[in-house]
């Protein structure tokens, strides 16, 4: 195949996988922000943060709560980033 041909193939023919990947990333984010679900997730995030704060100093945005809707099972993913383990009250 010529260089020209493969260049064209890349540019015009394989846009569908790009569409799929963009959608998957976008929807993973949007699904956590839908109606009742987002209320629940915000509440969970706030309460989890509260509990953790009693013991460790963490930032608001270091606690991520995500819900992935699946066919039969949904997965609740809680991601807490802790920079350094230090007991609370110490600088």
């Amino acid at each position, binding site marked *: 195949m010529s260089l020209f041909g493969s260049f064209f193939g890349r540019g*015009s*023919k*394989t*846009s*569908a*996988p790009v*569409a*799929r990947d*963009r*959608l*998957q990333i*976008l*929807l993973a984010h*949007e*699904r956590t922000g*839908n*109606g*009742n*679900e987002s209320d629940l997730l915000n509440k969970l995030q706030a309460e989890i943060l509260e509990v953790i704060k009693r013991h460790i100093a963490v930032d608001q945005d270091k606690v991520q709560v995500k819900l992935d*809707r*699946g*066919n039969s099972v949904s997965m609740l993913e809680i991601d807490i980033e802790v920079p350094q383990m230090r007991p609370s009250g110490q600088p």
Partner: protein
Amino acid sequence: MAKVLVVTSGKGGVGKTTSTAALGAALAQTGQNVVVVDFDVGLRNLDLVMGAERRVVFDLINVIQGDAKLSQALIRDKRIETLSILPASQTRDKDALTAEGVASVMAQLREKFDWVICDSPAGIERGAQLAMYHADHAIVVTNPEVSSVRDSDRIIGMLDSTTEKAKGGGKIEKHLLLTRYDPARAARGEMLRIEDVLEILSIPLLGIIPESEEVLRASNLGAPVTLSSPDSPPARAYAEAARRLEGEKLEVTVPVERKGLLASLFKGKS
């Protein structure tokens, strides 16, 4: 026991009205009593697509406001005896569509028909919410295109949270109807594949309607595509989808043009 079906999508122009008409006609052809209900108040089109635009006297809003009886607003299809249309209002304010009014009309329709198919307006506002509220089944019409898939995802979220079924702790049965699909383009990687859309939306597949000139021809003529050209690929896809709705287990395929028919036409001409 009547089944209430909503045909919805979020995005406009993906084929909700076309699909409502085609599936309604296909179900009615099997002898079932079917009514198709236009919920697009202010922008009604189901009557036009089904060729009943000149027979509209009363509409859904008239019935809700008590200006007409349900039986006066229902239009019996001229081609299929068991198919009726309940048109939307073209002129009234869409606020005239009240939750109580819709509930009362839906209860009456459940008494009269085997299938009540609600054609939802585009969007996620009140009209769309009312159209889906009483549904037992939802058909999510999706084009293999990013904005349509995104909106369908949003609608699926609403079906699971804001419908009567969902509020009562139940689950609305959701079905994906992939429309305007072009297998050749998908094979070349130019269009989202069926598997891609299914993986992203993760609801069961009801059918794949191939892109076809017959769909525009049908709306030009004011006939559901299942009636205007029953042998065409989209008509066969809709007919099979209707059989799946009735519980038949059929493998989902993309119907193609019947070569035999074309060949015999050519023979006839030469």
